[in-house]
């Protein structure tokens, strides 16, 4: 966490963008946005724009990475060169590799991998415009993309960060809050089983502050989960007229 005395993150009890301490940025999720991928999702989260795509299950290459009893979930996190203020050199760096690994592990927990021995489910996360919280946005979108691909899953992972700015615990850090705040705690959460599948933290927090942060994140993940479900509903539900409903009723009988 950086520090800069000149930057005022809280003013009259309000955050720079006017949000309350427990308020998320605007989140919009769309499912099934790419043609070639088996499943995909696009998320706009505040100023973040992130695309996720899923291919598979398909044959695992290289061979030696195959698991004989289950599929491997392999996530790749990548930032477009133009997604950040200073151009990012294309290609994986250590940060991207680490995030890819954590996202893979978080998602593997909800995918029924034992159904597809020796194969791989590839998850690609492309950050097209970055503004703090891209791993959480990416993980959230990737879950929707997996569902869109029809991969059997026990649940979707919802993800959100909380942190601390000017000694105040707040939800969903914005860009300045992330750069100049005191702590950042990204969380991946499985709502159905109430389990945490991704957790990182940097900065400094007391135990009380950690509890407060986790409470905020988990509540927010539940809210995000609803948005994920809604994105899938929007993609796959069809509105029926009365005749069609009657027709269906007959069939059921």
């Amino acid at each position: 966490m950086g520090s800069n005395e000149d930057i005022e993150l809280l003013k009259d009890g309000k955050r720079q963008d006017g949000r309350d301490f427990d308020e998320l940025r605007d989140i919009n999720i769309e499912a099934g946005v790419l043609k070639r991928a088996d499943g995909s999702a696009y998320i706009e989260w505040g100023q973040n724009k992130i695309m996720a795509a899923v291919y598979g299950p398909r044959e695992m290459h290289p061979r030696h990475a195959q698991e004989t009893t289950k599929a491997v979930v392999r996530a790749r996190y990548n930032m477009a060169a133009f997604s950040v203020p200073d151009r990012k050199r294309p290609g994986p760096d250590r940060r991207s590799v680490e995030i890819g690994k954590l996202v893979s592990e978080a998602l593997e927990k909800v995918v029924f991998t034992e159904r597809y021995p020796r194969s791989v489910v590839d998850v690609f996360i492309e950050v097209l415009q970055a503004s703090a919280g891209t791993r959480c946005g990416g993980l959230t979108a990737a879950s929707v993309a997996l569902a869109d691909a029809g991969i059997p899953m026990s649940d979707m992972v919802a993800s959100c960060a909380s942190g601390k700015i000017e000694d105040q615990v707040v939800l969903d850090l914005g860009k300045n809050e992330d750069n100049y705040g005191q702590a950042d705690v990204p969380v991946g959460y499985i709502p159905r089983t109430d389990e945490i599948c991704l957790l990182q933290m940097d900065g400094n927090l007391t135990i009380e502050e950690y509890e407060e942060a986790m409470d905020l994140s988990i509540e927010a993940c539940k809210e995000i989960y609803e948005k994920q479900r809604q994105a899938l509903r929007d993609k796959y539900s069809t509105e029926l007229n009365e005749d069609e409903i009657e027709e269906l009723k007959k069939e059921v009988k």
Partner: protein
Amino acid sequence: MKEILSNITKDYLYRLIKEGKRIDGRDMNEYRDIQIDPDWTSSAEGSARVRLGDTDVIVGIKMEVGEPFPDTPDKGVLTTSAELIPMASPEYESGPPGEDATELARVVDRGIRESGAVDTTELCIEEGEKAWVIFIDIHVLDFDGNLFDAAGIGAMTALLDADVPASNFDEAEEDEDYPLPIEHIVVPNTFTKIKDEIILDAQLEEEKIADARLTVTFNEEDEIVAMQKGLRGVFKYDDTMDCIERSKELSETMRERIMDEIDRENI
């Protein structure tokens, strides 16, 4: 992973082409629906998202202050890169750019560079010492054929959309950023030869049975500024003339399309 087209599909495509028809009902000389969205991302100095049918490409322009090349001490620097990310197709793999990505970047680059589309002399800050470096990054999201035109249109639109971020680099006062100096508007048109037919804007299945490919780039003064022949097949001289004639007309229409999307007068 190499994708395979079934023989049935191949035969069907060949038969259609012979009858002068295409799989999606288009005319031989017709583009798919094209959607151009300039200023798609705020983190780039200029950007555009181009959807050509189901092909989906984002081009972003980033600029920074660097050193001019020793052989052109009075000019800014232009660099084009393309990433064929594995999101875009089951055939793409992660890793450093391969042949296809390199060719794509170089064809787009050539059109822009050789035409003098960007006035790089204006981008020199201090001769031999300091100049603007322009990065054109092509990011392919969904690959359904004809990346060259989608990327070329995207790059040109993104350049037109770009502002030089002078104030960020202490080269100007706040609010004194200025539009990137653009001299010419160039657009590539890519033709694909299948048996004896030459079609415009091949979609994925058509590309898979393509014998040869020709990309022609025109500027607004009806001058050819770049060409690239690709794939293993060949063209007759007359074929190339045919493509050039067609490209001249097509590029004019496309140029108008781009200008319609951009609110900028000073070209």
